[in-house]
């Protein structure tokens, strides 16, 4: 798809147009880190496309912490339809949204996607270990690369093309600068993750044969886990939820049954976390993962072992947020590297 060159003023004009038509969430620099914020006319200048991902995942704008998904037995109220623009998300967050949509299977998402290349990676970034890249190759309406003196904007869809006002095509020299940014970040990722000496590509059939489930390694990591579920909640590609019902007090105008029960109830889809003890417990109390190490292990299996079977892909995108968030200092890369050491014949060393 075509690439254009935009100045800072062009970028701000684009943001102003997007804000006029809906909600725009984008990275803003705060104490040296990118945090995710809703952009207003007053904060357009604060939007920062350099660096790497935001502290918080973009998922919470698509997969809400809590969302009413049904009312019964009254008609569903009409939803509101303001356009949402996910602006400046990185390749890892885009990949995580792909996970969400694969799992939920609810049709084409309605929001616009404006991705941004990572111009540097973070200390905990490891997209390169799970087969990712620090820039998006597809799946966006627009993609932006921040250069020293402007931006390269690539269109990825007819919708994206329509968002742009006329801009000059990027020159060969500008495209070379873009390639330089991308290669630079990729090289930085290799350096940052050098010590782990592995990719996250264990052959799980072999791992099961070696009875990796009973490995001491799991019990060791578990000692550090305080079961706070921060890793679950901060993870852009954790999509577990629970349905919770509530009774509405007369707002929806429902009827009453023979015994006077009102027909006004709501069902909510609420984030859930597989590390919580009650997660797999059934009525009557039986629990298929009563021990914390089993739950911790299940999280890794879910992301690297089961998801390839269920969804045809990993459900860890290597964003490193769980490493930043872990109260017990558990580093997923270290855990994985330990597993690789235990399944030596099958994991490809780099």
């Amino acid at each position: 798809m075509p690439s254009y060159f935009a100045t800072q003023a062009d970028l701000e004009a684009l943001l102003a147009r997007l804000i006029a038509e809906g909600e725009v969430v984008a990275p803003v620099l705060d104490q040296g880190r990118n945090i995710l914020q809703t952009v207003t006319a007053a904060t357009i200048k604060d939007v920062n496309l350099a660096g790497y991902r935001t502290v918080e995942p973009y998922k919470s704008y698509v997969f809400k912490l809590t969302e009413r998904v049904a009312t019964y037995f009254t008609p569903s109220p009409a939803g509101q339809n303001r356009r949402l623009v996910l602006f400046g998300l990185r390749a890892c967050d885009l990949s995580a949204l792909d996970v969400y949509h694969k799992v939920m299977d609810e049709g084409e998402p309605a929001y616009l996607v404006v991705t941004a290349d990572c111009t540097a990676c973070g200390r905990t970034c490891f997209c390169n270990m799970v087969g990712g890249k620090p820039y998006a190759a597809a799946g966006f309406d627009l993609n932006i690369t921040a250069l020293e003196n402007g931006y390269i904007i690539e269109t990825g869809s007819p919708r994206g093309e329509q968002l742009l006002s006329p801009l000059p095509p990027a020159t060969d020299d500008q495209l070379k600068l873009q390639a330089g940014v991308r290669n630079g970040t990729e090289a930085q990722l290799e350096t940052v993750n050098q010590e782990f000496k592995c990719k996250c590509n264990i052959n799980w059939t072999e791992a099961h044969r070696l009875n990796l489930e009973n490995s001491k390694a799991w019990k060791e990591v578990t000692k550090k886990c305080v079961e706070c579920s921060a890793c679950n909640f901060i993870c852009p590609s954790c999509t577990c939820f629970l349905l919770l019902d509530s009774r509405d007090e007369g707002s929806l105008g429902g009827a009453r049954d023979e015994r006077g029960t009102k027909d006004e109830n709501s069902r909510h889809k609420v984030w859930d976390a597989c590390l919580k003890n009650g997660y797999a417990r059934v009525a009557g109390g039986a629990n298929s993962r009563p021990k914390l190490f089993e739950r911790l292990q299940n999280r890794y299996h879910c992301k690297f072992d089961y998801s390839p079977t269920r969804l045809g892909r990993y459900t860890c995108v290597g964003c490193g947020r769980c490493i930043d968030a872990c109260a017990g200092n558990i580093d997923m890369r270290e855990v994985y590297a330990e597993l690789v050491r235990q399944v030596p014949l099958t994991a490809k060393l780099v």
Partner: protein
Amino acid sequence: MSCNGKEQYRPVKARTEKVIIETSNIKTFVFRPEEPLSFLPGQFMLVTVPGIGECAFTPSSDYKQKETLEFTIMRAGSVTGLIHQLQAGDTVGLRGPYGQPYPLPSYHGKEVYVVGGGVGLAPLRALMYGLNHEIDQLKKVVVRFGSRSPQDICYRDDLPSWGKRKKTDLVISVDTAVPGWTGNVGLVTTILKDDDVDVKNAVAVVCGPPIMMKFVNKRLLDMGFAPKDIYLSMEKNMSCGIGKCFHCNLGPYLVCKDGPVFTWEQIKDIPEPW
């Protein structure tokens, strides 16, 4: 019912028609949904207590009876406790059916060995209706059922008649007898006899508490059943029922979508699947 439309989480309204007391902690509820809901034996549905929540159960009625659906439910947790308080006339919600039915056509020409325990008899009752509709295509149906005591047996009025159905052989055993019980005494595994069925041309269908399934499965393997011929009903925590919330995972499978019935062949490599 749709698994991805806007209404995917919305239950269909149903009226409680009748409540039958089966045992001290098990009741059968007859629900009449406002819209027709049909299922096949082995599939499950989610029963909503309005404003409180849902629980997954396999209907226990005949799938050909379309107007009403029956659910046999043990009081086990908070939602089932509230379900047990339902009376005729009360409103509930039903969502489903979900999951894979028993592959009945693949049982044609074979003997079917049905083994159950406790409230596991509920899904097996739906299966028994299904088998009975196709009895001419089956060689025979052998039912072995275990219960804690005679008082804990569900469908007491109906159950003895199962054994009188065409080509059907039924034995019930209780763990602890009481005066007047003339049947077998002992765990269900003690009434699984090598000459009950021709294992080379039979399938086994098992439903019951996890611990019972574990031992029955072992016994069936010892009897010579092939892992692909043993069908097990797995119970896991469920929320969405449609493969999205991941609560029900069993190794790489989602019980709500890939199950709830699995062959031993499918799950034998999962550590402690029960």
